[in-house]
Every structure is written in structure tokens, then in C-alpha cells.
């Protein structure tokens, strides 16, 4: 893509190119790096009718496809209905799943549709590396789902990997697994968002590994999808394939399960909340008129990074990565390849703690009580009194 086009994108588009829609906070897994802190369903999640109305809006805006995620979207009882409704309204669907509901029958249904694409999440090429992040049994679940898709003749589904300190040595293995299934490898950056805020310090790639990743992408990147994940690595040399800018509010945004619209999937926090699909005018009005999006489409100043000779290639990096590590938004990315991020983080340690994600739906350990609790007072009859 030419730099000229990047400049046009920076002013925003009439509708997003890449819209992420998280359908539910419910999830059968509890990945340590979950960007939306998912686990339990939120009682305020959009109803089926509200979801259909969002799809109608996307059709009017000519959004080509939505990236559906969660949570685990397939656990919503109306998931398959919404996929059908969407494709019937010329809005293609790519959905991310851990594979839990992709059995042989679902795989055949998916393979029969031109307008549905599937991303299977796998964060280790071996069960050992994957399950340490995604939980016991999750490797088997994902591999079984991939097997079903391949057997059903689904070509070109995506094997989606969040790059971590532990799986960077496995990049070649991931590509082999993808090739064996006629699938395409998709690599994305680990962000300190959601539960990832706690996992990030021990999981994010080391400086040496970032260089290794850059070199690997230069060699193999043409066949690997990366979205706008790795533009912060551009100062190593030539820009990588993919979108070399932050798309937040310009070409990308997030609709969360309760209909709130955020600038990007990695920024679930009130500072990046643009509005709600439930407000008058719906999603179209939020995309067009939200003051937050207008601000993101203005030329950015670059702040402390402006004097760095590499600012034009990395653009200061990822907004969400800075925010959730407590760094100023107009300063270096925490993984700045020139090392300015590490220096800034060392200073940030002395400042107030980084902001926490706006919503947490993590599974909580439920204390088990054997037998009936005695009433607090003699006249308390309802066992829920006091809760």
C-alpha cells in the first residue's frame, strides 16, 4: 500500500473496513491474555433483534464483513442464525473461535458458504505451549475443529496466533500446521488489554525476539496475515506487509456484547468509548459523529516521538499498548524497537498504576458451601438475605 493511501486512511473512512463485533462475554475458556476479560455472559448483551438491527445498519453502510468474536461467539444460542442473517444481508462474516462448537456437521455447513470465514485460535504449536495460555484441553479442541474443517473441504480458513515469548520459536511449526490444513496463518500482537494486562509482562516477546519476528515476517510475510499488528516493528527496516498504521476509529472499531462502541478491540476502557449502538442513530451515527473518532482522525502530534527519526515508520506504535502499560499516548510504544519504551516503562513504575480494563467478566471461583447457612437473624427466612 502506498504511503499516500495511509494518509487518506488516517482521515477515516465512510464506514469501517475491519469491524470487530464481540457477540458475548461468555466463554468456555479462561485464556490468561484475554483482551476482553471474558468468561461470564453479561445480562445486558444485545438481543437477537438488536443484533439483526446492527446487521441492517452494516448492510446500509456497506461494511463488507464483520469479525465476530467474544468471548466464544459460538456459545450464543442464536450464533448460527446471526451468521445466516448477516450473510443473507451482504455482510460477510469472519468469526474467531476456540473450536468448541465446530463439529463435523458445523464444518460442512461452514464449508458450503462463500461468505463465512473461520479463524481458529491457537497460541502454541504444541499442547504444552498452547494450554499454558489457553487452558487444559484447548489445544486438542482447536486441532479437532481444524480437522473437521479440512475434512469438510473448507479451504483457506485462518489459524490465528497471538505471538508470545513462548511461541516465537514455533513460527515455522505454525506455518506447517496451517499448510497441512490448507489454512492460512494469521499472527497478531499480544496487547496488555483485558486480562492481558496481567499476563503481558511475562508473555510479551523480548527485544531479541521482536527482531526475530520481524526477520521472519520479511521472509514469509506475504503468505501470513497480520492486519495492523506489527507496524511498531517497521523501524527495523522496510515496512512489513499489512496495514502500517493504527486503524483505531479510522478503519477499525469494536462493538462489544452490550452494544458499546470502542475505538479498537484492544481498548475496552471508558477513555476509548465512542458511544453505543443503542443510542439514537445507532452504529452509523457513532461511526460518523463520535467526538472521540473525530479526534482520532485528526493528524497526531507525535509528542515525545516526534524528534525520533523513525516516527514516520512506526507512528508511535499502538495506543492500547501504551495506555494499559501506563505510558502517555503521545510517547513511545512499550515495545518500541529503539528501546525508548523500556526506558519509559522504567519511569512509569514510579507513577500511579496503569489503568484497568473497563469491564471484567472473568470466571470467578465460586465458594462452595456445604449445607444451609444459618439465618443471620432469627426472623430472616429468605436464604438470599444479606447477598
Amino acid at each position, binding site marked *: *500500500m*502506498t504511503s*499516500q*493511501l495511509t494518509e*487518506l486512511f488516517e482521515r477515516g*473512512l*465512510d*464506514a469501517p*473496513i475491519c469491524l470487530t463485533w464481540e457477540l458475548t462475554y461468555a466463554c468456555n475458556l479462561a485464556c490468561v491474555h484475554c483482551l476482553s476479560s471474558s468468561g461470564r455472559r453479561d445480562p445486558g448483551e444485545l438481543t437477537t433483534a438488536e443484533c439483526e438491527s446492527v446487521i441492517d445498519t452494516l448492510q446500509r453502510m*456497506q461494511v*463488507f*464483513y464483520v469479525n465476530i468474536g467474544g468471548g466464544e461467539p459460538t456459545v450464543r444460542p442464536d450464533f448460527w442464525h446471526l451468521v445466516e442473517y448477516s450473510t443473507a444481508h*451482504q455482510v*460477510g462474516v*469472519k468469526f474467531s473461535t476456540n473450536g468448541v462448537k465446530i463439529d463435523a456437521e458445523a464444518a460442512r455447513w461452514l464449508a458450503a458458504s*462463500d*461468505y463465512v*470465514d473461520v479463524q481458529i485460535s491457537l497460541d502454541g504449536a504444541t499442547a504444552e505451549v498452547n494450554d499454558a495460555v489457553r487452558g487444559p484441553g484447548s489445544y486438542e479442541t482447536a486441532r479437532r475443529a481444524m480437522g473437521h474443517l479440512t475434512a469438510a473441504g473448507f479451504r*483457506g480458513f485462518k489459524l490465528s496466533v497471538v505471538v508470545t515469548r513462548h511461541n516465537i520459536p514455533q513460527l515455522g511449526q505454525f506455518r506447517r500446521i496451517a499448510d497441512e490444513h490448507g489454512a492460512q496463518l494469521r499472527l497478531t500482537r499480544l496487547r496488555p488489554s483485558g486480562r492481558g494486562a496481567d499476563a503481558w509482562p511475562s508473555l510479551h516477546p523480548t527485544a531479541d525476539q521482536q527482531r526475530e519476528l520481524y526477520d521472519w515476517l520479511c521472509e514469509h510475510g506475504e503468505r501470513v496475515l497480520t492486519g495492523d499488528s506489527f507496524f511498531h516493528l517497521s523501524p527495523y527496516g522496510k515496512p512489513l506487509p499489512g496495514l502500517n498504521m493504527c486503524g483505531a476509529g479510522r478503519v477499525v472499531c469494536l462493538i462489544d456484547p452490550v452494544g458499546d462502541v470502542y475505538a479498537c478491540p484492544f481498548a475496552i476502557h471508558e477513555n476509548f468509548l465512542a458511544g453505543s449502538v443503542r443510542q439514537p442513530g445507532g452504529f452509523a451515527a457513532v461511526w460518523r459523529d463520535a467526538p472521540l473518532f473525530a479526534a482520532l482522525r485528526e493528524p497526531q502530534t507525535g509528542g515525545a516521538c516526534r524528534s525520533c527519526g523513525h516516527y514516520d515508520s512506526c507512528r508511535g506504535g499502538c495506543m492500547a499498548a501504551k495506555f494499559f502499560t501506563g505510558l502517555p499516548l503521545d510517547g513511545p510504544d512499550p515495545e518500541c524497537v529503539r528501546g525508548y519504551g523500556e526506558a519509559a516503562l522504567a519511569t512509569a513504575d514510579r507513577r500511579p498504576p496503569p489503568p484497568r480494563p473497563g469491564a471484567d467478566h472473568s470466571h470467578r471461583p465460586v465458594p462452595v458451601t456445604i449445607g444451609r447457612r444459618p439465618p443471620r437473624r432469627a426472623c430472616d427466612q429468605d436464604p438470599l438475605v444479606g447477598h
Partner: protein
Amino acid sequence: MTGGFDLDRPWRLDERVAVRPEPFGALLYHFGTRQLSFLKSPTVLTVVRALADQPSARAACAQAGVREGELAAYAKALAVLAESKMISERTVP
């Protein structure tokens, strides 16, 4: 042949391609290959939309107001679209 693209053949936009006009030109999305493409000016968009109704790509360019000296650049843009299967040769009955 200009730039590896035959301007004198009839072409058309693939039926699985969706077109969204944008201030800079347009976005194209191919539902079959799941690839995104960009048309970098409104004139290219006019050319692409005219393809199906014109006997040749050259005629579509002329109708869109493309001058002789600009033809090579448009042929190059069309070649990229043909490469990514966004447009394909039409068989004339």
C-alpha cells in the same frame, strides 16, 4: 497489450466483488478470495463500473474520460485487479 493487460478485450467486475465508494476512490472486497483492494481515484472507479457495458477496457477508459497519455497507467491498475481476480475477461456471445 499494455503493461501485460489486454485493453482491447471485454472485461467485467467479478460478481462476487462488492464496491464501496470512498472519498479517495473506492474499496473493493472479493467474497470468494476474501481479498480487499483499493481504487485510488474516482476515475478508476468509473472505468471499473463501465467495463461490463463496453466492448473493451479501452472503450470503458474512453467513456470515463481517460486521455490517451494516461492509458498505460490505467492498464497497469486494471492488470493488478485482473491479477487479484477482481475483474475477469468477459466472453462475448
